[in-house]
């Protein structure tokens, strides 16, 4: 019976979570810093810096011009203040906008020539050895046999993409997966056509800033009818101090194609807050489908709110063609401040958008996150499942827009928005915006707020389960629907994260 196997697998996963958590004993796991020689551009932001970034990436003139226009626009804009987050004024002139590991300047011939610290970093990120070699740019590493299941990895270290794995194999399938800096040079027509077409240069303060100074990121193109033969994955790592990370991701799923894309983020522990302002644009043509999963574990700052990443991110998917489908799944456990609303523009008829989110805030963390479902086409469907968990003195806000336009006849949205509170000093807020401009669409919104209650805790304790394990168990149960939407490996990582990020929240 299939159900038998299912139980065994699930059990194994849950168990492993708990073991890992026990072993990790409560510290931010990715808080290490790698001492790698880094090349910086001068501090501050002006047209020279924008030109310099463009030049470092060997960009054509049209791209430099695009950036400069964005920069000019940005200078006329003001920081948005509507989100339910508080943080000190950011001094945009007191940041580095470009940093890259020096060892990336020439291509090494073998692993011996690679900066061992860079390799150590990949190992700590849990990237397999072969992928480590490829990422380090070792000649011939692509042809070596690999262990286990294949996941193509693109690693972005501070400002630059340091390497992409399985490029050749993907190329055979017609899939392009490379650094966006490379795509600008190698595939200018595709980039010109799609860059800024989902998130326009003028979109918002941080997106415009990103457009001016993005240094690298990932580029994906899946040709018509192709099912991407492996999962694609990007690891973002902020290493250098005082450096903003501005990566740009552009994914294009042409007609009838499919791709599953994973994104993971970590950063070292630092006393000073660091800025991360990314833009992700996804274009989905007719009958194509994209799954985009994020496990965001940027350094959240310490218990007193010192340090941590300010995570101001614009992510948007445009379902251009009929029956196009997008699914965002995010597990947000890190960052001091999160401001993020992965959105779906449901333009094509019968296109579908889904958003599954777990946002965990502990200590002094603040998150204002949610989604936008913009129904433009007829018979479009969207589904939102948001699980917010607050502990310590954290504030967690769900902010979501569901908009049914006049032409979006017979469209449906279902929103489920659950908040869980641990302790009595934290807060959970739900801010739904609903606009319906036709009379044949239906919007449903359900919201609940609950506490990890004493009865549940005592029940677990009385069975011999310790306090922290009990909280992890209850919270993982609360998040189950979203965890199930993640690819297997990510689901395990996410379960561990849920447990780790809530340590110290009881007792």
């Amino acid at each position, binding site marked *: *019976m299939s*159900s038998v196997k299912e139980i065994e697998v699930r059990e194994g996963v849950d168990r492993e979570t708990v073991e890992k958590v026990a072993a990790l004993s409560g510290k931010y796991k990715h808080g290490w810093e790698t001492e790698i020689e880094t090349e910086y551009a001068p501090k501050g932001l002006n047209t020279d810096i924008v030109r310099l970034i463009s030049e470092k990436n060997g960009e054509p003139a049209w791209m430099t011009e695009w950036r400069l226009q964005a920069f000019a626009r940005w200078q006329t804009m003001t920081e948005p203040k509507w989100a339910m987050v508080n943080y000190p004024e950011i001094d945009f002139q007191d940041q580095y906008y470009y940093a890259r590991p020096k060892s990336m300047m020439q291509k090494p011939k073998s692993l011996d020539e690679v900066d061992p610290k860079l390799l150590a970093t990949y190992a700590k990120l849990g990237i397999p050895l072969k992928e480590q070699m490829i990422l380090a740019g070792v000649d011939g590493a692509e042809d070596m046999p690999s262990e286990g299941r294949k996941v193509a990895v693109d690693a972005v270290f501070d400002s630059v993409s340091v390497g992409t794995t399985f490029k050749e194999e993907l190329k055979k399938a017609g899939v392009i997966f490379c650094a966006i800096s490379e795509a600008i040079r190698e595939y200018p027509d595709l980039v010109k056509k799609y860059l800024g077409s989902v998130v326009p240069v003028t979109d918002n303060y941080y997106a415009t800033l990103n457009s001016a100074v993005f240094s690298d990121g990932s580029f994906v193109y899946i040709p018509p009818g192709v099912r991407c033969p492996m999962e694609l994955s990007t690891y973002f790592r902020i290493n250098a101090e005082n450096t903003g990370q501005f990566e740009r991701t552009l994914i294009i799923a042409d007609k009838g194609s499919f791709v599953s894309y994973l994104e993971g983020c970590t950063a070292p522990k630092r006393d000073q807050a660091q800025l991360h302002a990314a833009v992700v644009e996804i274009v989905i043509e007719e009958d194509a489908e994209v799954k985009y999963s994020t496990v965001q574990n940027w350094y959240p700052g310490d218990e007193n709110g010192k340090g941590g990443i300010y995570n101001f991110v614009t992510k948007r998917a445009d379902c251009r063609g009929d029956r196009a489908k997008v699914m965002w799944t995010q597990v947000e456990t890190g960052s001091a401040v999160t401001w993020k609303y992965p959105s779906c523009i449901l333009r094509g008829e019968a296109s579908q958008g889904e958003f599954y989110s777990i946002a965990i805030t502990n200590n002094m963390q603040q998150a204002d996150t949610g989604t936008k479902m913009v129904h433009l086409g007829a018979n479009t469907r969207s589904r939102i499942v948001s699980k917010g968990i607050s502990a310590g003195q954290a504030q967690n806000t769900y902010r979501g827009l569901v908009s049914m336009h006049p032409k979006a006849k017979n469209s449906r949205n279902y929103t489920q928005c659950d908040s869980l509170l641990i302790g009595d000093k934290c807060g959970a807020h739900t801010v739904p915006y609903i606009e319906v401009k036709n009379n044949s669409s239906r919007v449903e919104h359900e919201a609940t707020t609950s506490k990890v209650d004493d009865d549940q805790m005592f029940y677990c*304790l009385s*069975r011999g389960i*310790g306090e922290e*394990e009990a909280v992890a*168990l209850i919270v993982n*149960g609360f*998040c189950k629907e979203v965890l199930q939407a993640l690819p297997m490996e990510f689901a395990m990582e996410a379960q561990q994260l849920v447990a780790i990020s809530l340590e110290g929240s009881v007792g």
Partner: protein
Amino acid sequence: MLTINNLHAELEEEGKQILKGVDLVVEPGKVHAIMGPNGSGKSTLSYILAGRDGYAVTEGSATLDGVDLLEMAPEERAAAGLFLAFQYPVEIPGVGNMTFLRTALNAQRKAQGQEELSAGDFLKFVREKAKTLKIDAEMLKRPVNVGFSGGEKKRNEILQMQVLEPKMCILDETDSGLDVDAMKLVAEGVNGLRDGKRSFLVITHYQRLLDHIQPDVVHIMANGRIIRTGGPELALEVENNGYADLLAEAN
């Protein structure tokens, strides 16, 4: 096994005294029943033994095999071999019954310095126990107690007891809300655990559960004290005459 000596306890917030000097000794391998009217302190006694928050012990002691129970955290008491079958089992949404059982068992094994059971061994172990309680694979997969009927919840408590194999089992009104068939199943589950060493403290309002789980000793509790102790015939006396006479006698 379980020794309770002059136990006094009150509700922490209101300072209201509930237990007013409970004395009780449960010997290894014995089944003791506690009966009594509503509000006599039966359930409170079980909560205090299991370590629930909200109660303050003001006097007296409780030990399990000579070890001070009251000094231990609830999970330590469980690992020491104490088990409480809840009157109202708690729902834990999203957490599979199997996951819960396995987490509990392995936490206890770890606390006792034993190897954790592998997924395969555990599955076999649980399946066997579940079968006798008529708990099917579907029910093992469902989230803990969520959407369970009254009878299913109580059977699930007994399953946990069978899996965790405690040495001292406390059953808090396990018969409430059960029909005759469910009560028989539950009683069989409990009787199957009687091995001459394991002890039981069965808290109940009614004699009928004691028809199925034969007690060695019956205590009558009222107003925070044990007012009468006797053999199984005491339960029958209560059944026939109610508590009024016993209460009058005690006063």
